[in-house]
C-alpha cells in the first residue's frame, strides 16, 4: 500500500513537474501562441467544433425549430435497422470508395512516375492535362451531355453508329448504368492534390541515389521503383493516401449533378448526399449529425489502416 502510494505520489509529482515545465516553456514562447491564435481560433470554430457538434447532436432529435431532445442511440438504431436508403447509400459509398480510392491512388502514382520520365516541356503539358479535370471542379457536368439519354448524346450516338445498340439508352437514369458512369467520372477527377504531390516527389529524389543504383546493379525500372523510389517517397505516399480517402468518401456533387437529386430508386445515393438530404432538405439535423459522425469514424479508421500499411512499404 505504502509502496503504491509513494509510486502514485511520485508519478503525480513527475506529471506536475512536467506540467510546470511546460508552463514555463509556454510563457517563454508567448509570441508563438499569439501567432497561432488567429488560425487556431478559426480552425477550432470551423473544423473541430463541427466534429464535436455532430457527435453531440447525433444523440438528439433536432430540427432547428425546437430545442434538441436527447434520444440516446435512437438515430443510429434507425439508421441501421430502418433506413433502407441509408443502406443503399452505404453500399454505394463503399463500392465507390473501394474502387476509386485504391485505383485512383495507384493511377495517380503510375502516371506521376511515367510523366517523370518525359523531357521537361512535355512533362509540364502532361501535368496540366492530368491535373486539369480535378481543378476544373464543375467541368464534369459535361458528362451529362456525353451520356445524354437521347440520340444527341455522344456516347449513344457512337454506340448506335457502330450498331452496338439499336435505340438510345438512358445512361444516367437507368439504375444499373449509373454507378459505373459515376465511377468513371470520379476516376477522371481523381488526379488531384495527391497526384501533384507525387509528381513533385519524383522530381525531388536525389539523383545520386539513382546513379549509385546503376553502379550497384539496379537493372530495370521496376527494381529502381521498389528499391530506391518507393522508400524515399513514403511521406508523399501518405499524403496522397489522405487525399484519396477524402476524394473517395466525400462523393456528393458528382451524383447530385449527373444523376439528379434524388436519383432514380436512390441508385446513386451516397452517404454524403444522404446527409445533405436530411440536413438541408428535411432539416433533421440530429439524424444528419449521426450520419456525419459515422463518416468521420470510418475515415479516421481508414487513415489509421493505410498509415499502418504504408509503414511496411519498401522494408
Amino acid at each position, binding site marked *: 500500500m505504502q509502496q503504491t502510494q509513494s509510486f502514485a505520489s511520485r508519478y503525480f509529482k513527475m506529471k506536475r513537474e512536467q506540467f510546470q515545465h511546460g508552463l514555463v*516553456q509556454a510563457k517563454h514562447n508567448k509570441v508563438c501562441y499569439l501567432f497561432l491564435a488567429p488560425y*487556431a481560433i478559426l480552425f477550432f470554430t470551423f473544423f473541430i467544433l463541427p466534429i464535436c457538434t455532430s457527435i453531440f447532436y447525433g444523440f438528439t432529435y433536432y430540427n432547428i425549430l425546437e430545442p434538441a431532445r436527447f434520444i440516446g442511440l435512437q438515430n443510429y438504431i434507425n439508421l441501421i435497422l430502418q433506413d433502407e436508403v441509408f443502406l443503399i447509400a452505404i453500399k454505394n459509398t463503399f463500392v465507390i470508395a473501394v474502387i476509386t480510392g485504391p485505383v485512383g491512388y495507384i493511377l495517380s502514382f503510375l502516371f506521376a512516375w511515367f510523366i517523370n520520365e518525359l523531357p521537361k516541356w512535355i512533362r509540364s503539358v502532361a501535368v496540366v492535362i492530368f491535373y486539369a479535370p480535378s481543378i476544373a471542379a464543375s467541368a464534369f457536368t459535361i458528362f451529362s451531355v456525353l451520356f445524354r439519354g437521347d440520340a444527341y448524346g455522344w456516347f449513344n450516338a457512337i454506340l448506335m453508329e457502330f450498331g452496338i445498340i439499336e435505340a438510345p439508352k438512358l445512361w444516367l437514369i437507368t439504375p444499373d448504368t449509373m454507378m459505373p458512369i459515376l465511377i468513371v467520372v470520379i476516376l477522371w477527377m481523381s488526379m488531384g492534390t495527391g497526384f501533384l504531390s507525387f509528381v513533385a516527389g519524383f522530381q525531388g529524389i536525389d539523383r545520386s541515389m539513382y546513379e549509385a543504383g546503376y553502379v550497384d546493379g539496379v537493372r530495370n525500372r521496376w527494381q529502381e521503383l521498389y528499391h530506391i523510389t518507393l522508400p524515399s517517397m513514403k511521406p508523399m505516399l501518405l499524403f496522397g493516401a489522405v487525399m484519396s480517402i477524402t476524394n473517395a468518401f466525400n462523393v456528393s456533387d458528382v451524383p447530385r449533378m449527373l444523376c439528379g437529386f434524388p436519383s432514380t430508386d436512390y441508385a446513386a445515393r451516397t452517404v454524403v448526399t444522404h446527409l445533405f438530404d436530411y440536413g438541408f432538405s428535411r432539416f433533421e439535423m440530429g439524424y444528419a449529425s449521426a450520419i456525419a459522425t459515422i463518416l468521420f469514424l470510418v475515415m479516421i479508421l481508414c487513415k489509421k489502416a493505410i498509415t499502418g500499411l504504408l509503414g511496411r512499404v519498401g522494408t
Partner: protein
Amino acid sequence: MSEINTVKSNGTLKLIDGKKYRGYLQADETGVAFYPKGKTEPIVQWTYPRMHRMDRIRRGGTSGEITVILKDDSRYIFDLDYGLKLYDHMDKHWADKPVMPRTRGDELHRLAELRGEKIEVPKKHLITRRHPNRSIGGDIGVYLILLIFAILMVFPLVFLIGNSLKPLNEFFRFPPPVWPSQPTTDNFSDLFVLMGQSWVPFSRYLINTVLITFVGTFGHLVIASMAAFVLAKYQFPGGRTFFAVVTTCLMFSGYVTGVPNYLIMSRLGMIDTYWALILPAFAAPIGMFLMKQFMEGLPTALIEAATIDGASTFGIFWNIVMPNVKPAWLTMIIFSVQGLWNSTATTVIYSEAKKPLVYALNQLLAGGVARTGASAAAQVVIISVPILIFILSQSRILETMASSGIKD
C-alpha cells in the same frame, strides 16, 4: 577542410597526337585539375562557374570518373575516357557537347593549338541515354500508355470547349461532332445576353465571387502563414499536437462538416453573409499544412541570425521568412482560389444578390438542348480561371508540393 572535399581518381589523359599522361584527376571546391604522375603542377585545369560553388563530389562508377554536384544542381562529370560532360538536372539529360570552361584549361588548349597539338575533344555518343537501365521497349510502352490516357483525360474537356464553340444546328447533327465544323463565338455572346436578362445584374455575381475569392485568399495567406511559421520554426508545448490534428482534418472536406458548420454559423449570425464563405477559407487546413512543410525547409540559421540581430518575431516572419517562401504562397493561393472560386454556397447564402458566379452560371445549365451551348460557354469561363492560374505557376507549385509529405 579541403581534405574532406577533395576526390582523386587515377587514370590516363590522352592528347590528340597520341601523347599520354598517366596521373590523377583531382576535384576540389574550386575546380578539377589533372596532375601528371610525379608533378605538382596540373597540366589541365577546369573551374566551376563562379556563382555556383560545389555542393558535393563523388567518385563515379568507373575509375577515372568524378561527379561534381554544384549548388544549382547542375552536374559535371569529369571522365578521362569520355572527356568533360555536363549533366543538366532540370532537363535530365546529358548535354551532348563538352563544356568548355573559360579557364586555364582554355589557355592550355590555345597554347596547344599554337604548338600544333591539341587536347582531345571527346566524341559525341550516338545515343545519349538518360537512364542506363531502361529498356527501349519499356520506354515505348510507357509513352503509349501515357498518350492513350492523356487523350482519355483531355477528351471531356475538349468536348466541352467544342460544345462552347458549336453553332446551334451542330447540336442536332447525328452523330454529334466533337469539334464543330464551323466554330462560332455565338454561345459566348448568348451567355452575355442571358446574363443581361437575369433578375440580379450579372456583374453583381461576378463582384461577389471576386470579393469572396480575394478576401478569403488574402486572409488565408496571412493567417495560415503566421501559424505555419511558428509551427515550423519554434518548439512550444501543444504545437506538435495541433499540427497532428490539422493533418487529420485534411480529410474532412466541406461536405462532411456542412451540417454542423451550418448550425455553428447560424449561432454566430453568419448565415447569408459573405463571412460564411470567407472565414472557413481562412482556416483551410491544406494551405496551412503545405506552408508549414515548406517552411521547415528554410535554414534555421537564417532565423537565428536575425534573432541575434535583434529582430522581433513579427519582423523575422514578415521580412525574412515570407519573402523566402514565395513558391508556397502561390500554392496556397491556387488551392484557396480553386476552393472559393468554385463554391456554389447554396446552403449558407440565400439572398440572390449575394450568390457567387458559379451558382448563377450553373443555373443556366437547367434548360434542355437549346441551352447546351451557352452552358458549355459558361463552364469554359468557370474552369479557365483555376486552370490558367495553375499553368502560369506550375513550377512554383511543384516546388512546394515536393515538401508536402506527411512524416509519421
